[in-house]
């Protein structure tokens, strides 16, 4: 599904957070939002998930998401927050089953089909062996996979991921990013994410949008967005950008000499 964002403006507590942001993620594409803390990345993901009021339009294959019923929107787009609430005593399976919520009628309860989809999602993210384990007993990397499994159980067409790797070490970061990449390649899922690791964003997303104070500072493929001058200007950082082994830019912070 094509996710199109037009002239998105969000004002929270009378403070403008996003002003006239326009961008689009192709069907099966991965669009990643980057930018300094407070640039409006998470707000944009939350607006797409229908969690904050906004002006402008968000379209799914040309349909305004505002015209969709809450449940239908939730079936199409699965949202993974930066810090998901994980009830400590809930089991992994019960938690992933919650992903089926948008497919259930108001008084409906999960049936065989829902259990089958849940089992498939557990399997796909390689957490099936933890099905009966309590969430409190899962490690950081396992939790992130469980949260993704919940998103996947909804059989969405679009994944909205807010910093899916922020709590993970480099190996688990890579694992999760590869997983998401695999999901969009196999299942044609469209991904809109935020990523704070610029090199990783450049490696996995086909398109980057650099947000600065709620506006688009630059957009396009990694090579055009991840440049020393743009990053230094927007982040107030000192960095060196060099082509990595795969030809995509690697961003390395540089310590002040002295």
């Amino acid at each position, binding site marked *: 599904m094509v996710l199109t964002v037009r002239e998105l403006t969000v004002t929270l507590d009378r403070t403008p957070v996003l002003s006239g942001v326009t961008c689009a993620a192709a069907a099966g594409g991965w669009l990643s939002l980057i930018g300094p803390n407070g640039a409006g990345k998470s707000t944009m993901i939350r607006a797409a998930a229908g969690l904050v009021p906004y002006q402008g339009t968000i379209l799914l294959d040309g349909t305004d998401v505002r015209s969709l019923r*809450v449940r239908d*929107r*939730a*079936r199409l787009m699965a949202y993974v927050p930066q810090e998901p609430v994980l009830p400590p*005593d809930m089991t992994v399976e019960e938690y992933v089953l919650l992903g089926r919520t948008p497919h*259930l009628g108001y008084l409906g309860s999960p049936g065989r089909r829902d259990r089958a989809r849940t089992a498939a999602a557990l399997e796909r993210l390689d957490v099936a062996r933890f099905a009966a384990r309590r969430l409190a007993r899962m490690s950081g990397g396992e939790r992130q996979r469980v949260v993704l499994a919940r998103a996947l159980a*909804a059989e969405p067409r679009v994944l909205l991921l807010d910093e899916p790797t922020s709590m993970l070490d480099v190996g688990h970061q890579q694992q999760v990013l590869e997983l998401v990449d695999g999901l969009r390649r196999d299942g044609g899922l469209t991904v809109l994410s935020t990523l704070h690791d610029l090199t990783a964003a450049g490696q996995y997303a086909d398109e980057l949008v650099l947000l600065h104070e709620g506006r688009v500072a630059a957009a396009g493929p990694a090579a055009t967005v991840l440049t020393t001058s743009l990053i230094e200007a927007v982040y107030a950082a000192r960095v060196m950008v060099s082509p990595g082994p795969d030809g995509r830019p690697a961003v390395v912070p540089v310590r002040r000499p002295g």
Partner: protein
Amino acid sequence: MRRAGLLGAAALFLIVAALVSALVDKIPFVHLPTSLSAVDQAVLFQIRLPRIVIGALVGGLLAVAGAGYQGVFRNPLVDSGMLGSSAGAGLGATIAIVYLGGAGPSAVPVAAFAGSLAGVAIASLAGAAGSARGPVSSGTATLLLAGVAVGLFLTAVQTFILERSTQVLQQVYGWLLGSLSGASWQQVTSILPYAAVSTAVVLLHGRHLDVLAVGDEEASALGMRPAMVRGIVVAACSLAAASAVAVSGLIGFVGIIVPHVARRLAGPGYRGVLPLSLLLGAGFLVLADTLARTVLAPAELPIGVVTALVGAPAFIWVLKGTRSVGV
């Protein structure tokens, strides 16, 4: 499967509790002095049986309402008496006793019922006004705080009225501590419709409470309407608590300890916790009432005293073995 087994065991517990309560002086070696020398059918069917049914209803309602509130507020320490419910009932009963003393036997239950619902309504309105401009997620905290404030206010009004009419102090006090001694079939039929509707509504929302456990924001993203679900469940729980309070007075602890035990047995999922709380609460209160009317027989202990005396140590014992619960 496991849930079905637990519910079966809980139902059995309730049946045994009811049998013990009905036949307590028929059990070998237990001889209680009773003013009714011939324990005939009339005693069983007109005095004990309605009392057992009322005890089961009240216990089940308080427990299921407590569990429902706890799910809505994602807080295991919330009780069925919160949100101004108990304080409203107390004020209603006090007004009925002080100002409508001779207005018939149904004046106090009706006033307690109305007061309980009015207390929740005022707290909800105050909470809604307070959180209207705030972020979505602060709604539950605001509502609870509003409930505490409204409860304190209503209790203060009640104390003021009582302080000016000390001659009925004992009567009001007796009501506040809870008792099932006035139980009758007429009481059963008068609360049964409310009990049935409210319990059914709460039980039908178990899955919604499970979704609410991941927070309002994620619940919304999953296509649910948290504010609407919260409104429905709070209304149903308040109706359940008000029905219970109307015939029993204020009975504490059942709404906290029973859902907690249910959670320990069935896990955190509300589709198990709610029905299990209903059955365990019913059995627990029938047993507590049996103690209340036998320990000092022929005098009676207030049942609220029994639930607290038994409940508090049991609760601490349960807590000792509990993992820290994320609130």
